């Protein structure tokens, strides 16, 4: 039972990270690439850490995995905001209707 839960969580995490990577290659401009990588990447890391916590089933590991998830949830929007702001001010080209 534990193996099934861990497998599903790990596969979901890897799938979200692969989606983020596909998005960062295929999307046309900076804000959309950031949109793909920030959200899907954080989701993938969260799923992977949930899988780790389920696999070890230990209080210390659970605390560490929870700390990683909280840290990613705090820092990922801040980093995306700061990079997007910098990219906007140096005038990176936009595509489509955003132009």
């Amino acid at each position, binding site marked *: 039972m534990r193996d099934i839960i861990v497998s599903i969580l790990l*596969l979901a995490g890897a799938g979200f990270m692969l989606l983020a990577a596909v998005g960062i290659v295929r999307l046309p401009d900076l804000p959309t690439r950031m949109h793909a990588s920030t959200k899907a*990447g954080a989701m993938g890391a969260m799923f992977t850490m949930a899988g780790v916590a389920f696999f070890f089933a230990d209080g210390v*590991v659970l605390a560490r995995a929870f700390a990683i998830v909280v840290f990613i949830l705090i*820092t990922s929007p801040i980093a995306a905001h700061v990079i*997007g702001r910098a990219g906007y001010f140096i005038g990176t080209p936009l595509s489509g209707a955003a132009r």
Partner: protein
Amino acid sequence: MIPFVINIVYFLLSLALLLAFIRLTRGPSLPDRVVALELIASIVVGFVGVHAIDTGISSLLDVAIVIALTAFLAAIGFARFLERGTQE
């Protein structure tokens, strides 16, 4: 069952790393490359977590914490560098 799934997950994460590296080398502007670097750091955090399951060493999670922290500081530093470079 777990070792088989872990092999698949390693393959998927390697593919994601390769795609992010394509954007890192091709990216037309510096912010694109910074975004790709951040995604690479996030993928490496996932890699370290899967490797912790693979080897059964739970101390590897500390490495994941440090990588996440370093990636955040690098992103902030690059953004500072970009904004200050435009004002001069």
